[in-house]
């Protein structure tokens, strides 16, 4: 998550104090991502160093300092908003690694392992859905954050469903020797 760019976005509609930026950041993300004030000031100092924000400096480093976005900050913000988020390499996913590992451990019922993770995911989704049920209709930012989290968890639950189906199929059918690959493909996983 780019706190730098989120702060630039908050400054794009007018100058603000550091404390105000923290409050607005937390409100914008539906209070799901807390941000400490030290992180706000450190980020603002770096943005100032890079010429993306400026402050009047009259209050030194104190909380009374007002920050505003510069034209190059505006340019940087617009570039970031449209820049594709890097999704080319799959992240290392511990859940996937656990299921792959379970396949190798003698005496482990992989379907049981799958179900333990499925239940945990659905319980988490129940909590997020409660949040949506209670509040999200009144708070667009929160609704968007909650939906993103629900879709993320749902994609993992779907992967578990698909894994479970593949395991069933593999246990019902005799293993087929795959033809020798012409070349070995590698999927590089980001660390």
């Amino acid at each position, binding site marked *: 998550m780019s706190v730098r760019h989120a702060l630039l976005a908050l400054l794009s509609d007018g100058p603000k104090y550091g404390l105000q930026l923290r409050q607005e950041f937390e409100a914008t993300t539906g209070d799901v991502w807390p941000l400490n004030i030290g992180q706000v000031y450190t980020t603002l100092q770096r943005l100032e160093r890079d010429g993306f924000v400026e402050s009047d400096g009259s209050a030194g480093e104190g909380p009374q300092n007002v920050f505003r976005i510069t034209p190059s900050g505006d340019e940087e913000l617009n570039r970031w908003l449209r820049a594709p988020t890097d999704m080319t390499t799959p992240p290392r996913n511990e859940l996937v690694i656990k299921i792959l590992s379970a396949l190798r451990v003698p005496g482990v019922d992989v379907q049981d392992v799958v*179900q333990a993770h499925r*239940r945990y995911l659905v319980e988490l989704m129940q*909590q997020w*859905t409660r949040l949506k049920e209670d509040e999200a209709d009144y708070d667009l930012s929160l609704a968007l954050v909650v*939906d993103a989290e629900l879709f993320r968890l749902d994609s993992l639950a779907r992967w578990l469903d698909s894994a479970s189906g593949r395991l069933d199929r593999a246990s019902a059918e005799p293993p087929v020797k795959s033809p020798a690959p012409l070349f070995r493909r590698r999927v590089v996983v980001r660390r």
Partner: protein
Amino acid sequence: MSFLELRKVSKRYGEGDAEVFAVRDVDLSVEAGELVAVMGPSGSGKSSLLSIAGTLEDPTSGEVFVGGALVSTMSRNEKARLRRRTIGFVFQDFNLLAGLTAAENVSLPLELDGAPAKKARVAAMTALESLDVAERASHYPDQLSGGERQRVAIARAIVGERRLLLADEPSGALDSLNGDAVMRLILSACKRGVSAVVVTHDARLGSWADRVVFIRDGQVVDQTVAPPSPESLLAGPPARR
């Protein structure tokens, strides 16, 4: 006793080598006002379980109680009356009758049960109003959007004094926002005391339930525990640097 109770319910098809259990030794209780989701893959027995709970099919063994009454001791007519008066069904493809208006679709089960047409119409309008679709009462199903059709189907399922709502993949092919809306409607019926069972393979729908029961090869294999308050999520992860 719970409003819906299944005790050691099994449904077996075929004999000998061809014997297949669609449902095996299932215990399931649903309290008044509770929303339970039954999740499992295709062919896991979810829909069979729903048909048995709704008295549409008899179990091979085990007992089903609806509102405290043992279903197996009822005659066919008594079961049909129970379905007309107490149980509402919502299906994936809505199952609205094309030749009837929205209001007529909703009032039909009451009229079939002998209610006077005027009284049935008033009850239908009340149900449609509670689902915010009363202004479409005189429209035919093909004049309604997918979301509106599903609202009408839910209105038909809760019209009158129905206390048990059984839904099979109730969001059908609706998009995610309309799917949420469907579950919100079912949940609001539960808050008025209706017991509901929703079968689905979709975790996003299932997560609206108070409790999720997982079924596999006809057997209940697991269920969720009551989720803690959502406030625990808002503590959030530590701020990232």
